[in-house]
C-alpha cells in the first residue's frame, strides 16, 4: 500500500496554515447563525439537529454494524415526549430534552434485545416494523401527540430567538461530537467495531456481545431521543406526519451518503439532507426567473417533489462509486487539516478490500458495506495532539 502512494511530510509553516484553515472553518460555522436571518438560523438549527440524529444512526450502522430502518420512531418518541412534558407537564425545556434522551434510550433498548436474536435482513425488517407500529400506535395517542394538529412545544425565554436556539443546537452537537470521538478511541468504541467485524472474535477478546449490542442501541436511542427533543422545540409544533417511514429512509440516506463510520462525513451528509428541500426550492425559484425553456421550467417547478428521487440517486452513487461517502471524498482534506502526512494520490481502498474478501480471508460479512473510509479518519492513538 505504501509503495503506491507518496506520503507528504508536514513543515511547521504547513502546520500553522492548516490550523488557520481549520480555525477559519470553525469560525464560519460559529458566526453563521449570528449573521444570517432568523429563518435561516432556524434552518441552521435544524441542520445541527439532523447532525445529532445522523450520529445516532451512525452508532448503529457505522460502528456496531447493526441496522435501524425505524429510527424515526426513536426521534419521534423523543420529540413528542419533550413536547408533552413541557406543554402538558409544565417541565422546563432543559429538563424535558434530556428526559427525551432517556426515553429514547429505553425504547431503543427494547429493539437492542431483539437484535441479540436476529441479524441482517431480518433485523432490518423488525426495525422497519417497529417504526411503523410506533407510527400507528404511539403517535396516534391523542393526549400525547395532539392528534393530527400536533403538540406545541414553545421555547422558554432566551431561546425564543431562532439564533440563540441555533447556538444551543450547535453546542449540543459539539458535545455529541466530542463524546463520539472519545468513545471511538476508547473501550466502548473499539468493542463496537470488533463486534461489527466479527462477534466471535470480539467475544474471544473478552467482550460481552450482549452488553455491547444492547449498549449500542441504548446510546443510539439516547441520541435519537435527544435529537427529537431538540427538533420539537426547533419546530415549536410536533406533528406525527413528520415521523413516517420516509423519514427513517431519509436518516439512512444521510448517514450512508455522509459516510458510515465517519462522524464528520455523517454530520456533513445530515446537514446537507436537512438543507436539501430548501436548496431545491431556491434552485426552482432561480430557474423560474432565469429561463423560459419549458422543460427546465417544469423541472424547476417539480424539484421539491424530486427530493426523494435525488436522495435515492445519491444513495445509489454512494454505494456503487464511493462507499465511503462524503467522508471518502474529503479524506485527503481531513488528513491535511489534521496536520498529518497525507498520501498525495489517494486510491479508493475498496478495490483491495474486494480482492481480499474474494479470498475469504475474513470471517463474517457486513449488513451494508460500511466502507472503505471506516476508521481511517481515526487518528492513530499515538500521534494524538492532546498530550
Amino acid at each position, binding site marked *: 500500500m505504501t509503495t503506491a502512494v507518496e506520503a507528504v511530510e508536514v513543515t511547521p509553516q504547513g502546520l500553522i496554515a492548516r490550523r488557520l484553515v481549520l480555525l477559519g472553518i470553525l469560525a464560519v460555522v460559529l458566526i453563521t447563525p449570528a449573521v444570517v436571518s432568523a429563518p435561516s438560523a432556524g434552518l441552521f438549527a435544524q441542520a445541527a439537529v439532523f447532525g445529532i440524529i445522523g450520529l445516532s444512526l451512525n452508532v448503529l450502522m457505522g460502528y456496531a454494524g447493526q441496522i435501524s430502518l425505524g429510527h424515526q420512531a426513536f426521534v419521534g418518541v423523543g420529540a413528542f415526549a419533550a413536547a408533552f412534558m413541557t406543554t402538558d407537564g409544565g417541565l422546563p425545556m432543559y429538563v424535558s430534552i434530556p428526559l427525551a434522551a432517556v426515553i429514547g434510550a429505553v425504547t431503543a433498548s427494547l429493539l437492542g434485545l431483539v437484535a441479540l436474536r436476529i441479524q441482517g435482513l431480518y433485523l432490518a425488517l423488525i426495525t422497519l416494523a417497529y417504526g411503523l407500529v410506533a407510527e400507528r400506535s404511539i403517535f396516534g395517542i391523542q393526549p400525547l401527540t395532539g392528534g393530527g394538529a400536533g403538540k406545541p412545544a414553545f421555547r422558554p425565554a432566551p431561546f425564543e430567538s431562532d439564533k440563540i436556539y441555533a447556538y444551543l443546537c450547535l453546542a449540543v452537537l459539539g458535545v455529541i461530537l466530542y*463524546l463520539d470521538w472519545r468513545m471511538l478511541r476508547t473501550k466502548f468504541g473499539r468493542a463496537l467495531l470488533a463486534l461489527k467485524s*466479527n462477534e466471535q472474535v470480539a467475544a474471544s477478546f473478552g467482550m460481552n456481545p450482549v452488553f455491547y449490542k444492547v449498549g449500542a442501541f441504548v446510546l443510539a436511542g439516547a441520541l435519537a431521543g435527544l435529537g427529537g427533543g431538540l427538533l420539537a422545540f426547533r419546530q415549536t409544533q410536533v406533528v406525527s406526519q413528520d415521523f413516517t417511514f420516509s423519514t427513517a429512509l431519509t436518516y439512512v440516506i444521510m448517514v450512508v451518503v455522509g459516510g458510515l463510520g465517519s462522524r464528520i462525513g455523517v454530520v456533513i451528509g445530515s446537514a446537507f439532507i436537512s438543507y436539501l428541500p430548501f436548496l431545491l426550492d431556491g434552485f426552482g425559484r432561480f430557474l423560474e426567473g432565469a429561463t423560459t425553456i419549458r422543460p427546465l421550467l417544469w423541472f424547476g417547478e417539480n424539484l421539491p417533489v424530486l427530493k426523494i428521487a435525488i436522495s435515492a440517486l445519491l444513495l445509489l452513487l454512494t454505494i456503487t462509486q464511493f462507499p465511503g461517502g462524503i467522508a471518502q471524498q474529503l479524506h485527503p482534506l481531513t488528513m491535511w487539516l489534521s496536520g498529518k502526512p497525507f498520501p498525495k494520490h489517494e486510491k479508493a481502498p475498496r478495490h483491495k478490500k474486494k480482492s481480499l474478501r474474494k479470498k475469504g480471508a475474513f470471517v463474517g460479512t457486513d449488513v451494508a458495506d460500511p466502507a472503505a473510509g471506516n476508521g481511517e479518519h481515526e487518528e*492513530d492513538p499515538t500521534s494524538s495532539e492532546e498530550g
Partner: protein
Amino acid sequence: MGLLEVHGVTKTFGGITANSDVTLDVSEWEIVGLIGPNGAGKTTLFNCITGVYPIDSGVIRFRGTDISDLKTHERAELGIGRSFQNLGLVRGTTVLQNLITAQHMTVPYGVMAGMVGAPETYAVEREVVGKADQILNFTDLMEYRNEIVDDLPYGVLKNVELATVLATDPQLLMLDEPSSGLSPTESDRLGDILLRLREELGVTILMIEHHVPLVLRVCDFVYVLNFGTLLAQGKPKEIREHPEVIAAYLGGETDAA
C-alpha cells in the same frame, strides 16, 4: 494439575457427530499439538473449548474449575485466548488498533469514563499503546504497525493475529493452524516465536497444526483426531511412526496393532 482438561466431550450437529468422547489434557508450560485430517473435528473441539458451541456431554475444566457452561467472553476472561482459522482480526482498522482492541480485558476504566474522556483514561490508553508496541517488537511486526489490516498479505496477517491474541494476555493460547499461508522460512520463525513465548512469557499452547516439521520441533505432546474421536496420543516422534495415524492421513487400511 492440568491447565486445561477436556473430559469425554461429545458434540453433535443434527445427526453428525463432530466430536465423540474426546479427552485431552494440557499442562502448564506445555506446547500441545492437535492434528488430524480435514473434517476430523479439530476446530469444532476448539469451538467447544472456547464456548462458541455448547457441548452435548462431557466436562471442560480450566485450572480445575468446570467452565463448560461459561460464555465465550467469560472463558476469555479466565485466560483462554485463541486464533481463528480465517483470521480473527477487526477489519478496517490498523495493526496497532487491533492490538489495542484485543487488550479490552485489561483496560480498567468503564465505558462511560472512556466516553466522557475522564482524565485517568488517557494514561491507561498510553499504557495500552505501549504494550501493543512491546508485542509488535516481540513478534517482529513493527514495520506493519500503522497499516490497515485489510491491505496486508495473508502470511503477515497470520502473525498479526498471533500478536493480537497475545495482547489479550492469555494463559492458554489456542492457535488454529498458525502456519497456514506461511512459507517454510516464515513458519521456522513462527516456531522460534512460539518457543520464546513459552520461555519468556510462560504461555501454554494448544495448537491445531498440519505442518509436520513445526509440530516435531515445538510440540511436547500430540493428540490425533480422526472422525471426531481420539485416534492416538503421544510424543511427536511416536506419533509420526504410529501406523494408524499414517493410515488416517494416507487413507489406507491398517491392522490395528
